């Protein structure tokens, strides 16, 4: 009984007791509790996890760059090892030796010119020559065998009496001798591969026959062989497309606000001159571009106020619904402000792209990679920037560095399709970065701005058209 009474006494006194309030300690405790509840995700982890679209594009571009370089190197190796390269020389030489049988004045292998000589030659010869001309390409051994096999057939069809008269008397030409040598074997089996290898490589012999000179003599200009020059080309490329860019602060105190900047797109365009310099492919051009970034953030803050005559309670009649009494008194009013800001920063300027290129040709397709940069001349800028307190302030071109020039290293991948001998359609992907910063605080036009330094990461996706031009022709040709 007494024990029960003790329990009841303790329960009645202690169970419902309330401790006295201590506002300072209570507020401090609430701050600890709320920070423990929020348990924010670390900024590094969050930002790391948030792989922006721009990051994915740059990553994809890097992977493509490595792939293209790898493919290109493999293609280069295959091209240098291909037997067709040597075969090409042989086949061209073979056709040229056939060409020597043609009447004077003809120095090309064009089928049309051959057809024009049909009244002086056997029609089978024309057909065989056109077949030979079409076989000029780096192909397997069958090509060389076919050409060699066609030569005896050609020679066999043409007897000495059918040969054009101007050449009847020229018996010392190596090419003709070679042909006659082949003719000796006309009825035999095609030469074996070992025989082919033993035959010395034939050289192109530009033949100059004077007009009106019936007894035109082929003049061997040995010096022309070394001086034969490959045609030089250059190209003009016009491009246009989309730019994407993202911005990050480099200031320590503003680093945390970088996550409020997101990738946005804008435009770029220009023309570029592609040329060769010391056997290296280079490009230089001029254009204009604009970079845009999206600034988006939300800000919430609270204010408190005491309203002296707030309605505390209202008593209603349950039957009639009439208001029986209204109690008023001081009331704490807590206002929560929520601001959502979305804005766009712009940076635009004239650009001089400078690039070293490496290209690989696959049929009509061109794969290319370029390394270089863009020399940028700022023409304008505007947008918003953060202060350490978390507010934003506007800036314009006058608040940025007085040095309007900037260098942006870039890497580019491109692919082209040559739909005409002189025309090619291109698509390219270029990634780069550049620094961007404001003036010092005392020089800023907007007093609420804070000085900042940052980096723009950029991506350009563009399409274009290239026109090829030939600079100079071979010295050995008329």
């Amino acid at each position, binding site marked *: 009984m007494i024990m029960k009474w003790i*329990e009841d006494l303790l329960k009645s*006194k202690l169970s419902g007791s309330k*401790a*006295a309030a201590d506002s300072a300690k209570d507020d401090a405790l609430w701050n600890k509790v709320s920070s*423990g509840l929020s348990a924010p995700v670390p900024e590094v982890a969050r930002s790391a996890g948030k792989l922006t679209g721009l990051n994915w594009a740059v990553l994809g571009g890097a992977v493509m760059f490595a792939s293209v370089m790898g493919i290109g190197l493999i293609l280069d190796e295959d091209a240098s090892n291909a037997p067709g390269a040597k075969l090409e020389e042989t086949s061209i030489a073979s056709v040229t030796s056939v060409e020597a049988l043609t009447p004077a004045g003809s120095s090309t292998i064009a089928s049309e010119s051959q057809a024009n000589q049909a009244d002086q030659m056997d029609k089978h010869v024309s057909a065989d020559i056109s077949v030979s001309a079409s076989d000029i390409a780096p192909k397997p051994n069958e090509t060389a065998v076919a050409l060699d096999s066609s030569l005896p057939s050609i020679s066999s069809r043409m007897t000495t009496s059918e040969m054009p008269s101007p050449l009847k008397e020229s018996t010392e030409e190596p090419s003709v001798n070679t042909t006659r040598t082949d003719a000796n074997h006309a009825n035999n089996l095609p030469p074996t591969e070992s025989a082919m290898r033993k035959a010395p490589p034939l050289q192109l012999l530009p033949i100059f026959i004077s007009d009106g000179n019936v007894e035109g003599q082929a003049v061997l200009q040995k010096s022309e062989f070394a001086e034969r020059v490959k045609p030089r080309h250059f190209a003009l490329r016009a491009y246009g497309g989309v730019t994407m860019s993202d911005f990050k602060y480099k200031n320590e105190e503003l680093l945390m606000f970088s996550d409020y900047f997101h990738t946005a797109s804008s435009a770029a365009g220009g023309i570029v001159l592609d040329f060769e310099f010391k056997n290296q492919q280079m490009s230089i051009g001029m254009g204009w571009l604009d970079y845009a970034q999206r600034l988006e953030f939300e800000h919430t803050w609270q204010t408190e106020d005491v309203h002296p005559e707030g309605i*505390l309670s209202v008593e209603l009649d349950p039957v009639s619904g009439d208001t029986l009494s209204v109690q008023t008194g001081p*009331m704490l009013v*807590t206002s929560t*402000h929520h601001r959502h800001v979305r*804005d766009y920063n712009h940076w635009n300027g004239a650009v001089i792209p400078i690039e070293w290129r490496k290209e690989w040709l696959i049929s009509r397709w061109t794969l290319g990679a370029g390394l270089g940069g863009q020399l940028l001349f700022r023409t304008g800028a505007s947008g918003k920037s953060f202060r350490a307190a978390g507010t934003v302030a506007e800036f314009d071109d006058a608040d940025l560095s007085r040095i309007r020039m900037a260098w942006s290293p870039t890497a580019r991948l491109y692919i082209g399709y040559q739909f005409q001998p002189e025309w090619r359609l291109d698509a390219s992907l270029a990634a780069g970065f550049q620094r961007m910063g404001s003036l010092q605080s005392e020089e800023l036009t907007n007093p609420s701005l804070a000085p900042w330094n940052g980096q723009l990461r950029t991506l350009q996706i563009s399409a274009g058209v290239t026109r090829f031009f030939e600079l100079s022709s071979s010295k050995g040709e008329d």
Partner: protein
Amino acid sequence: MWIASEIDTLDVIQEPIVHELMGLEVERSDSSGYLVQRCLEGDALAQRGLFDELLPYLKSAVRRYIWSETDVQDVLQEAFIRIFRNLHQFDRSKGQVQTWATKIAVNAAITFGMKESKHKAMEHAQEPEIAEPEVLAQLDAEALLHRLRALPREQYKVLILHAVDGYSHDEIAALLDVTPLTSRKRLSRAKQWIVSRFDLEGREMILKKTNDHEMD
């Protein structure tokens, strides 16, 4: 394409919350239930409101077991974090949120005390010197608690858990990592200690003078 916008919204909450009284008295639990509901919806202000409402009770409950004020703040912080993170588990049909929260706070205090007792010896408070007899029933909560701290620690915890916070012996056994029989024994000894320290006169007890106790 580049469309800038700036949207400001404003939410205003006035406290105390206005209730329409339909000729009935609004029970306090209704406001607590409203706060719990708002907390579950992510209302930060409701969280603060629930915190303010529960704090006096939880502070009192924790102080029954933790005597250092610094430790009390730490235990309360831990308790409130547990309360808010597990608020979705609170079932209104099974009782008041205050009761549920008090249990969480008591558990946190007991756990904290057990951790501390491993590091340092928790000795019971010395019996205060009483100048003249006091009617036990007229002591306020703080004074009564102060007197009871003279109990041996383990008996004190069982007494308060059972008599004040309503824990069963099975619950006490699980909490203190003892058997229910041990819990009953400790409670019995605690009550005997009280009986030996106080005189019974009907429903009033007179606190013996310390000297009289020593003579016994």
